[in-house]
């Protein structure tokens, strides 16, 4: 979707403010927000693609006006509600929720280290060889999907070069909507700055994106 999250090349957000190391959280609730999001995700009811789509589906003014972990919490509430794990009545009166036995997939404190260290493998085997090879010229397709996509607007319609072929990966555009993993070849595609930004590009700059095969056409 052409949502507020697709920020590459937008203007008007002001300077970037550097920050020293060692401050991952700036309020106690931010740490709880991160942990709740990871622990709820471990229930296995939604994928990382669905959770990204929940964030970018927030109303644009809300997305742009919220801090990062605010976005995470708003999206987590939406995901929990969509999947029947949170009701408006519970939300209105947390202290009256009756205690229940642990869910079979509840992430136990003792399992956190191994679950985080294992991660999730997003690579998948493919049925057919990749269509493109390193060095091929490709155009990022001029597409505007209504659902989740990972093809940023700023490359659509522009010509770049395949730099690397990474094998098969879960396709977020289907996976975010419960429509299957539908793995496709993933490529690193490099665009000259001038191809993307014309005469307003900084000289000598280039930008790459990682693009699934159906985002690309021969150029």
């Amino acid at each position, binding site marked *: 979707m052409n949502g507020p999250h697709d*920020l*590459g*090349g937008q*203007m008007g*957000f002001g*300077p*970037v403010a*550097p*920050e020293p*190391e060692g*401050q*991952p*959280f700036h*309020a*106690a*609730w931010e740490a*709880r927000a991160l*942990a*709740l999001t*990871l*622990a*709820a995700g471990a*229930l296995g009811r939604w994928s990382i693609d669905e959770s*990204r789509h929940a964030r*970018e589906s927030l109303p644009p003014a809300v997305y742009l006006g919220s801090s990062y972990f605010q976005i995470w919490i708003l999206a987590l509430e939406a995901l929990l509600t969509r999947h029947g*794990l*949170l009701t408006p009545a519970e*939300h209105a009166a*947390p*202290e009256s*929720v009756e205690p*229940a036995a642990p869910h079979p997939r509840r*992430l136990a*404190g003792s*399992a*956190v*280290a191994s679950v*985080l260290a*294992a*991660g*999730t493998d*997003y*690579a998948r085997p493919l049925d057919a060889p990749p269509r493109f090879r390193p060095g091929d010229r490709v155009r990022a397709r001029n597409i505007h999907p209504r659902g989740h996509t*990972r093809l*940023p607007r700023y490359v659509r319609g522009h010509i770049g070069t395949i730099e690397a072929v*990474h094998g098969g*990966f879960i396709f*977020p555009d289907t996976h975010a909507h419960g429509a299957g993993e539908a793995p496709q070849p*993933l490529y*690193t595609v*490099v665009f000259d700055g001038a191809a*993307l930004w014309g005469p*307003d590009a*900084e000289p*000598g*700059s*280039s*930008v790459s*994106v990682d*693009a699934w095969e159906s985002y690309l056409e021969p150029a």
Partner: protein
Amino acid sequence: MPHDHPDHHHDNHLDPMEARVRALETILTRKGLVDPAALDTIIETYAQKIGPRNGAQVVARAWDDAAFAGWLRRDATAAIADMGFTGRQGEHMQAVFNTDDCHNLVVCTLCSCYPWPVLGLPPVWYKSLAYRARAVIEPRAVLAEFGLSLPQDTRIRVWDSTAELRYLVIPQRPEGTEGLDRDALAALVSRDCMIGTALPRAPEAAA
């Protein structure tokens, strides 16, 4: 500092997000969906255990061991796993090496993709609207705001992390570091070096 020891039970400020998150935690805990001990462990992990010192060790080893650097180029996931750094948001790693001609800069314009096992959680600026918007269209202007001015003939390559590949920038080894051991080398490597918004410190400045 208070944010180094998040303790939701004794925090009295009136931030509406504090109340909202606490309510959600209460509901999910009562319903048996989350274990408060798991929340504490997740926070402890990313506040204290997993951070950019991991990545700095990877860079120092790459500077010190040409065979390891070659492995890192060919299969960064395996090479980094060999140092014990694996898992969430680092499942598919790519190491990108700065050269005399080309400087690398990493961004995620669509969200905040970042290599957690080697760098920890991203800094606020990496997740900010400004960085995500500007890194791809005016990387030199962004680097200048970090105090980094590269020669005009140095090319800048920006890596937009749009898939599940996670990028670690391997900066060039500074001159005058021949006698340093790996711990001393790692001390020259800041988090920002491994995102691409800084260069390693000179050895005399690191003491």
